[in-house]
């Protein structure tokens, strides 16, 4: 059989090459962790620009070795969409609480994130947030067709089937491989941090190749001084009629149930905070359906003997939209949580 190059390895050469490749793939991310500066400190949260850098997220969780710390996990409500790091729920809850939220998450992605990148969370206290926003419509529940959505690489790629997810088999398998080969997640980290969130080859062709390292960039779009930090009544057209998805048909709720089970299987002590959703934004006729859902969630948590808190709705002016509180809202919510008996028992004595 004619070859037109001399690239024709025999068995030994293949074996040698594969050993070198395997070593490189295994060791590079580990060595990188030692080389790259990653300062966190109090109130640290994963930067918005690195929301999809799951390798960094995994690294962040691995840093949290103090078992007295309580991990606060959830979507952008926990991360703090409109507020600065010192305006989030974890900040107001106190020093023991660590913000492990990620912007743009939803229960299906949360499950994927914890399953694949959250193995460091074992035997820990975890405050888990459930946001009823994900049941407000078939679209939010990922049951309606959509061009694309956030964190698609985290959702279940094959089962259960997600109607909103239209990636082809190759993309889905690629996502599965990426989750299981740490080197590939690390490549994604390198691209996100040093190459302007582009693949490196595209970056070489970009007109402007200067990149601000998001690991050390301050976010100016959030916080009380920003234009986005305003009550929902100033930016919205009033109450909304939501197309609530019943719990027994909701993909997001089923995923949240699996997430809770997964965290408990890993020996974690989980407490769930349900909402508080911005009820002021729900049209009058629509509130009964919301309360049925909220009570259904609470009932399931009780059934599972899971500590949980369903805080009262916050004052209207403390919400920025349907689910995200403003800075004062977080402060009030934290106070109410500490006042809750279930939470206090779960949390244990406070550290002074």
């Amino acid at each position: 059989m004619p070859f037109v190059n001399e690239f024709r390895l025999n068995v030994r050469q293949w074996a040698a090459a594969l050993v070198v490749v395997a070593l490189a793939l295994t060791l590079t991310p580990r060595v990188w962790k030692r080389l790259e500066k990653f300062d966190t400190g109090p109130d640290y949260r994963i930067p918005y620009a690195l929301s999809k850098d799951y390798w960094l997220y995994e690294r962040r969780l691995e840093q949290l070795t103090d078992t007295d710390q309580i991990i606060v996990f959830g979507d952008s409500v926990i991360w703090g969409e409109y507020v600065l790091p010192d305006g989030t729920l974890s900040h107001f809850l106190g020093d023991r609480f660590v913000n492990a939220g990620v912007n743009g998450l939803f229960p299906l992605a949360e499950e994927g994130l914890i399953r694949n990148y959250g193995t460091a969370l074992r035997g820990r206290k975890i405050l888990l947030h459930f946001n009823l926003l994900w049941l407000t419509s078939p679209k939010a529940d990922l049951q309606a067709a959509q061009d694309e959505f956030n964190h698609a690489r985290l959702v279940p790629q094959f089962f259960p089937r997600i109607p909103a997810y239209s990636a082809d088999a190759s993309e889905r398998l690629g996502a599965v491989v990426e989750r299981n080969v740490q080197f590939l997640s690390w490549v994604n980290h390198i691209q996100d941090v040093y190459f302007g969130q582009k693949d490196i080859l595209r970056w070489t062709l970009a007109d402007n190749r200067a990149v601000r390292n998001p690991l050390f960039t301050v976010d100016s779009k959030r916080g009380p001084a920003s234009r986005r930090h305003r009550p929902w009544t100033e930016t919205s057209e009033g109450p909304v009629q939501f197309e609530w998805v019943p719990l027994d048909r909701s993909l997001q709720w089923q995923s949240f149930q699996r997430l809770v089970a997964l965290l408990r299987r890993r020996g974690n002590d989980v407490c769930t905070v349900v909402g508080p959703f911005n009820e002021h934004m729900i049209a009058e006729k629509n509130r009964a359906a919301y309360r049925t859902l909220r009570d259904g969630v609470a009932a399931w948590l009780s059934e599972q003997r899971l500590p949980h808190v369903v805080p009262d709705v916050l004052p209207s002016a403390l919400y920025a939209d349907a689910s995200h509180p403003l800075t004062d809202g977080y402060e009030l919510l934290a106070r109410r949580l500490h006042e809750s008996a279930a939470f206090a028992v779960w949390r244990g004595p406070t550290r002074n």
Partner: protein
Amino acid sequence: MLFHTWPFLIFLLVVLPVFFALRKTRLWIPWLMAASYFFYGWWKPYYLFLVLYSTTLDYCLVALMDHCPRKTPTDDRVLRVAFGVCTVAMLGCVSLAVAGPNQLRPTAMVFSLILALMAAGALFGNRRIWLVVSVVNNLLLLLFFKYARFVVENLNAAFPALHLSDPSTLMPWGWSYVLPVGISFFTFQSLSYTIDFYRGLVPRERNFLRFATFVCFFPQLMAGPIERAKHLLPQFQQFPAIRLQNFTDGASLFLVGLFKKLALANYLALYVDRVYDNPQAADAATLVLATVAFGWQIFFDFSGYTDMARGVAKLMGFNLILNFNNPYLATGLGDFWRRWHISLSSWFRDYVYIPLGGNQRGAFNTYRNLFIAFLISGVWHGAAWTFAIWGALHAIGVMVTRELERSAFYRERVPKLAKQLGVFAFVSFAWIFFRAATLSDALLIVRRIFTAAWHDPQAPLLMLGLVGAVWLYQFVYESRLRDVLRTGFVRIGLAVFMVLWMCLLSSGGKAFIYFQF
């Protein structure tokens, strides 16, 4: 299904073990055929009918041809039955064409014609008629799916009174009118079998499954190499001898192909697409560089595909023919075509150029035949005037270098490197017509190359370095330093480099350029 995607890896991980497990049974051929049909049907299952139809018809035609003696007419029972069946089927199709549902009439009409020809073949016991049926059938498929819209558009533009309707209206049951991937490859492969049988070059393949596997063998079904029955069919006669070297060679070929596609072709495509999508905004240097980059892109893309095809076939113990032999080291245009897409250029040589008379009837006829063969080869690539011009340019290039090579000065005094660079420059120039979206774009690019200002083309050094390294590798391969490339250190180093590069820098899963042909 694309070779460089995850589904193909899973497909291969299923196909290979089952194939080896069936080695002692007669089921390995049906398994290969089923796998190949699955591979093709992954894209659009209903176009499997086309492959199956083309295969079945050519199989039957050769079987009928086998019943026709070369010299004296015969009274053969099979032919009588064939005449009866074809006549009845033809009458059925004619009645469908006249009184059937509107959406089926055009298809029924075409089948009536083919069946009429087949009935005539059976009536007269004439081998040539069977051959004509095969040629007409395969070319009709190709012409309809590939060129009908182009022809209709051009005719309507030239003769507005004609008002010819779009070919999509001829599709039965309202099926979408899409170019089936790889149609040129499997029709050419099937056609070559009937022609070779007619010429007495290959024996009749009596086993339908084996013949169907030859036509649709998945490694080369989508983009070649276009195999000949004489080479591939005998390999399906018995289960291939499997040695460890099959795996190491197959994996070596596959890795090189994968690297060419993912690391090189897709990278170059980013630059080429950016420039060619908006040529009026590019200066001369950028256009020149993008054109040269496209020359390498298409080489890496297409030769990468055939490397992978050959590698996959090799894993199963089959040998596919060499399709590319470092074409950019060619010293003449004729030499280039003996190195570039070898299976296609030899196909045109054997089935177009030689039947036209080849080089047997003087210089004028030789050049006329060359011109016709290259023109058809150009149009084979696509229904556009740009492809016709590309073919014509190559025809002229071949003629010119052929004449130059007659002179002792050119043969002996012009340095080899100068000839290689000259051929590369000419081939790159011709690629402009191949790559440009329209003829006016191509002409604009040519004009701007010669008239616009020269600025920094802003090509990444990484890209230039990669292409330079590949070219250097090819030069070394064809030089006295070749032994350096054979050392274990270089081979292992290259393998490690290629795998890590793809893990770190791969740029997505674009489809192969030649799928569209």
